[in-house]
């Protein structure tokens, strides 16, 4: 299965508002796909269809071969155990410490790991998101950027096959933002994870995305490799990309090069 996530003719309305209008889109295994579009176009709604928090009015969303709207709860939960999601503001549990938040998916679903092994795994991902030694820190003591990194650590701690990001760069300082981009890049290279990155900011995603899909007024108006999409002549896309977006020089593979920190 090379396409772990497939949208087929998905429409979603809230009252009179059509948020997704006949969207067909598939996400490739081991690739990073950015879904971009202005605020309020339905990017988060699209993401919530992937995890089964929202169901389409028509069409289907298939994730790892499971129809997320029609499958039994048991099967939906089985799929969710294989994916991780970073929420816009982290969605950390206030009553738990940083480490307990990250350990949560392991405690719930990895009874096969001893407490000691779970702790080791948590320390390992804390290191990965560059927050070593913060296990006992209460989440209330974290900055916005740190919350996001902890949310990311929690999303990847159980070695998911698919990781979803809702606006990973919004509200972050450029340093943290770059760090997250690098993390995505590194993890993808090492683990072959399928990433979906939602963003209203194309500049922030160009560095990490293999493919870009653009949503505009509920419709998919562009979908292709990053190189194809940034060169597209579609007028809305051109406007969205901005007049002064300076593309980095392409690397050997034709993709824009990742700037080094």
């Amino acid at each position: 299965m090379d396409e772990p996530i497939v949208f087929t003719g998905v429409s979603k309305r809230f009252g009179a508002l059509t948020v997704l209008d006949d969207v067909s889109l598939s996400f490739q295994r081991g690739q990073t796909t950015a879904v971009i579009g202005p605020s309020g176009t339905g990017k988060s709604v699209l993401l919530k269809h992937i995890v089964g928090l929202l169901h389409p009015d028509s069409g289907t969303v298939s994730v790892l071969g499971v129809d997320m709207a029609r499958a039994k709860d048991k099967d939906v939960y089985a799929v969710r155990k294989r994916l991780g999601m970073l929420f816009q503001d982290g969605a950390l549990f206030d009553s738990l410490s940083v480490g307990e938040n990250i350990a949560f998916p392991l405690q719930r679903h990895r009874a096969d790991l001893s407490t000691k092994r779970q702790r080791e795994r948590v320390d390992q991902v804390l290191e990965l998101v560059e927050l070593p030694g913060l296990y006992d820190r209460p989440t209330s003591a974290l900055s916005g950027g740190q919350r996001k990194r902890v949310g990311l650590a929690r999303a990847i701690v159980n070695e998911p096959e698919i990781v979803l990001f809702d606006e990973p760069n919004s509200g972050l300082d450029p340093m943290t933002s770059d760090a997250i981009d690098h993390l995505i890049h590194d993890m993808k290279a090492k683990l072959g994870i399928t990433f979906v990155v939602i963003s209203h900011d194309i500049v922030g995603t160009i560095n990490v995305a293999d493919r870009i899909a653009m949503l505009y007024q509920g419709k998919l108006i562009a979908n292709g490799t990053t190189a194809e999409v940034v060169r597209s002549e579609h007028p809305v896309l051109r406007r969205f990309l901005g007049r002064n977006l300076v593309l980095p020089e392409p690397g050997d593979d034709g993709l824009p090069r990742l700037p080094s920190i």
Partner: protein
Amino acid sequence: MIRWLGGFAWFVVDWARACAMRRPPPGRVMEEAFRIGVMSLPVLLTISIFVGTNLALQGYNAFVPLGGQRLVGMFVALAGVRELAPIIAAAMVAAKAGTEMASQIAVMKTREQVDALEVMAVNPLWWLVTPRLYGIVLVMPALTVISIFTMVAASYVAATVQLGLNGAVFLEFARNATSGFDLVAGVVKGFVFGIVICFVSTYCGFASTKGPEGVGQATNSAVVISSVACVSINYIVSQVLYG
């Protein structure tokens, strides 16, 4: 109102389908029971004491002019044990624990933590409702019994010390008016009220609109709706048992 009831009924059915046959999250039931108990006990004791003293006073005002001093104990026992103690326990637990349930869940919803539970393959009804439900069901009967004894004891003290009634007569008439059955009925009422408060309050949390206003509204509805529900159910139960 009809919409609310419909949503509420679905919520309870959803919980029952997903969680009724499932063991609660380990360790969390006792934690909730302890929290609910500790949180509600001080205010419950205070209110029970003063309701008890005033029951004695008004019983005195009602019966002593008619020469019915002995009836004061009986009045206190019937009104306090059968009606006021269970309903006051319910109201105080709704005010302390119910509001907290509603606001905690509404805040979690606002901050996408409820969605995060779903996405991490943990059923939010199981994780958030089950421990609170079993916790409240454990402590509510105990709180009701505590309220009953506190209220009667406070009336006894007020009747003998302040109003100068004969303590032995007071107790004899109180005991004759009530029986072990009334204690059992109080426990059953506590049990039922606990279930009602928990489902109403957690539902108010889950059904809240996102944002600070939603949290305030959920908290407010939780205490109002669960109090009204408990008083109405109390009416029906008492009609059946004592009518």
